[in-house]
């Protein structure tokens, strides 16, 4: 079943990219979930759509942009969005979560304006919304490889600081841990990972890949390191199962990956019925 993925280059790129985002998305998702920022991934993925729409609109008029993968513009937008959310969280200090719906709706609003300006984008847009098994070419693949290396390296390097900040921000600040720079660095990484993940999973479902595997892992893990282990394990299982079934059943991979995730989640909830969270 899976061997067909090794026969064609484009499928092989998709599979390897899938494996990398199956690792990266839950890896960063762990910090988002424990900091109660799960919805952040949703807001950022919607801004990514705005960026993509903007790039496609420019592509109609400027040749440079028609050759460029719109996802890169999406990533730029999503990094910008993450910085804006931080500012807004500071403005609404007592209702921090307000920043997320504000940016989410602003992003969609602007995106819809871009889309209508360009008289709709038909098929391409469908792929960005729900993912595609064949979206990855060689250049994209190398971008994904380098991003995976950089993000993994940074997380390992700053693991202890990010862990401390997530657990108890006040104490971490007293211990002299540089909160703001680390927080910005983290948000930028999330924005970039959303950008690369959405080519396969699609914008509407990318946040699921950051949170559902972590939700499964939460039921099983006793410590923080175990949480990473289980989250990545569930992420990888669902990506592989989702990609293979998407190809064979001719479905959008976003849907199958998330459904695989949901099945895993139901399984772990049943298996760990006795605990409550």
């Amino acid at each position: 079943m899976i061997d067909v993925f090794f026969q064609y280059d484009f499928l092989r790129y998709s599979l390897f990219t899938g494996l990398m985002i199956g690792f990266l998305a839950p890896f960063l998702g762990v910090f988002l979930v424990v900091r109660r920022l799960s919805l952040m991934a949703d807001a950022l993925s919607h801004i990514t759509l705005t960026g993509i729409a903007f790039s496609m609109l420019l592509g109609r008029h400027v040749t440079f942009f028609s050759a460029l993968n719109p996802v890169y513009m999406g990533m730029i937008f999503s990094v910008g969005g993450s910085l804006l959310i931080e500012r807004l969280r500071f403005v609404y200090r007592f209702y921090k979560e307000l920043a997320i719906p504000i940016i989410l709706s602003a992003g969609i609003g602007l995106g819809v304006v871009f889309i209508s300006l360009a008289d709709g984008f038909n098929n391409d847009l469908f792929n960005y919304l729900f993912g595609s098994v064949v979206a990855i070419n060689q250049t994209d693949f190398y971008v994904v490889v380098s991003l995976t290396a950089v993000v993994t390296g940074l997380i390992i390097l700053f693991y202890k600081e990010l862990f401390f900040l997530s657990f108890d921000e006040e104490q971490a600040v007293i211990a002299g841990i540089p909160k703001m720079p680390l927080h910005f660095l983290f948000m930028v990484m999330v924005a970039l990972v959303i950008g690369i993940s959405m080519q396969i999973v699609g914008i509407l479902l990318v946040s699921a890949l950051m949170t559902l595997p972590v939700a499964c892992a939460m039921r099983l893990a006793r410590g923080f390191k175990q949480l990473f282990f289980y989250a990545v394990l569930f992420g990888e299982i669902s990506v592989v199962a989702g990609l293979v079934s998407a190809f064979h059943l001719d479905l959008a991979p976003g849907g199958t990956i998330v459904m695989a995730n949901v099945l895993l989640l139901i399984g772990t909830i049943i298996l760990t019925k006795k605990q409550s969270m």
Partner: protein
Amino acid sequence: MNTHTNTPAVEIENLSFAYRNQNVLEDISLKVPHGSFLGLVGPNGSGKSTLIKCILGLLTPDKGAVKLNGVPVKKFDKWSEIGFVSQKANSFNSGFPATVFEVVSMGLYGKVGLFRFLRKKHKEKVREAIAQVGMEDYTQANIGQLSGGQQQRVFIARALVSDPAILILDEPTVGVDAKSVSNFYTMLRELNNEKGMTLILVTHDIGAMSEYVTDVACLNKCLHFHGDKHVFEDNKEEMMTAMYGHEVNLLEHNHDHGHHHHHHDHDDAGRGQE
């Protein structure tokens, strides 16, 4: 640490602080010499936690200054020399999946520094600190699944693990059982006597505290007393009435609003807990 024996560990000069319009601390001056063990007492809402937060640089005073080892707080950077157990230690998210070992390790992160990892000797220190508070049977347990008192002990271990020169404890024994409290005080006294650690302990447990500390400070917006514990003991009655008994009168002296003000105090205290 003991290189500057003449510089106090903590020095507060004419410090005033207000939350929005409510004055909480007025003209506090206080020196905590190295090697002393200060008990800080006062009624609810008297500004003890606020003073501690000013010492730690979490709040910036409106007037006056705080120095740690002679260095102004803003410029101080050796935070690993300072241990802190907060009054709201349980404010962490109790569903957080971290083991006791992982939580106590955090106490070393500042000392180990950026771009470095915990080594074997650090892990050994973590185990020692866990044993010091009698939690060795729970090393791999999930912090959220411990009782309140057990969690508090873990946070105490986290503050102790980096061998701080100054240890600040804001009501650390809330929810800890009576026997463990006296063990804990004994442990603090040993740290103070044997390692020369400077301690500041905020507590309501005035009876038990005065057996262990060297100095006492009584706070209720202003500093009513600061000095040797024997002097405190001799004038205890007076101190108590000054601080607790005629609290409203005292406030009237220092403030125009009288009873109204007292009510405000309680309202705000509720909000402050968030």
